[in-house]
């Protein structure tokens, strides 16, 4: 298949331009084809690798699809009860203040059952990095409606679309924590195109560097797709996300440190 002229000569170690970092293990990811979790894991691992923090990092994994994160990232990981990752991360950071502590949570974990923990951890200004993957539904359990589900969006528990009169309004967690004095850097990104992946990686690197300053909580929301939960192909789901999710969850920095 790859028999074209000169191609074999290019594939040499000295010509390497990009490869998966070693902090990502060789285990096959359990995520569905096209899921944004894999990309988010990889860029987080790349930043940890580039900042040489592998031995200094403690992650807290949530309940949700990414509960198995310890299988894929070669750093120390603690699994927390549903929604309690910021509370566990607070304890870890206070006991070991020299470590870099991050939590990695989905929207069912962070914005539903863990709302109180998240808001209070951000309000106290704990020196942790919270990565919030927002795909608008409970992906692991079969696509039920989450607090972040858009108005009119179909899910398995709102088959006619979310009716805000009976089911309430969607919760913009990132906008809420941006108003709290404890947060230092709050941003919303996505990982569906190469440009957005690079931007998100830059945001994660900034947040990791801010963590060294001990100035407060860094909060990164990543708007992600859920092809299985949305009943779409991965490419369709990315397009739908651009057309429907981004107007409601606009990308960009919500709170940046004052220089």
């Amino acid at each position, binding site marked *: 298949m790859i028999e074209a002229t000169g191609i074999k000569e*290019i594939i040499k170690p000295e010509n390497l331009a*990009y490869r998966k970092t070693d902090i990502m293990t060789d285990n096959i990811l359990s995520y569905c084809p096209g899921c944004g979790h894999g990309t988010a894991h*990889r860029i987080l691992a790349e930043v940890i690798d580039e900042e040489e923090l592998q031995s200094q990092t403690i992650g807290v994994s949530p309940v949700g699809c990414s509960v198995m994160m310890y299988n894929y990232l070669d750093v120390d990981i603690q699994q927390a009860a549903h929604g309690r990752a910021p509370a566990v991360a607070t304890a870890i950071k206070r006991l070991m203040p020299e470590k870099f502590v991050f939590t990695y949570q989905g929207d069912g974990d962070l914005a539903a059952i863990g709302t109180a923990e998240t808001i209070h951890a951000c309000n106290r200004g704990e020196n942790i990095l919270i990565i919030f993957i927002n795909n608008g539904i409970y992906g692991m359990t079969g696509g039920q409606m989450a607090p972040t589900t858009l108005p009119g969006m179909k899910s398995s528990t709102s088959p006619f679309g979310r009716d805000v009169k009976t089911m309430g309004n969607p919760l913009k967690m990132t906008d809420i924590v941006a108003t709290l004095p404890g947060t230092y850097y709050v941003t919303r990104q996505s990982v*569906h195109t190469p440009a957005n992946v690079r931007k998100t990686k830059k945001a994660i690197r900034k947040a990791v560097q801010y963590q060294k300053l001990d100035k407060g909580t860094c909060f990164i929301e990543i708007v992600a797709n859920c092809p299985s939960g949305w009943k779409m192909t991965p*490419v369709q789901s990315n397009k739908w996300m651009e057309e429907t999710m981004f107007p409601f969850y606009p990308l960009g920095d919500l709170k940046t440190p004052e220089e």
Partner: protein
Amino acid sequence: MAKIKGSIVVNMENCKGCEICMVSCPTGTISMAKEVNGKGYYYAYPANPDLCIGCASCAMVCPDGVITVYKTKI
């Protein structure tokens, strides 16, 4: 002017055939194979390897990190 040539290697057994690399490729190098891998997915492969410029866009968006990119000047 030196010409930049790239090449990608896809770990075909780990590819899940989501096609995101195919739509992200600016030169149309990648296509989906007509046959399936061990898990039953139509894996991605460099169908037009001469077009590759080694930009690593495919590797950046690949959720499973199965693409390795090589790049050189000729």
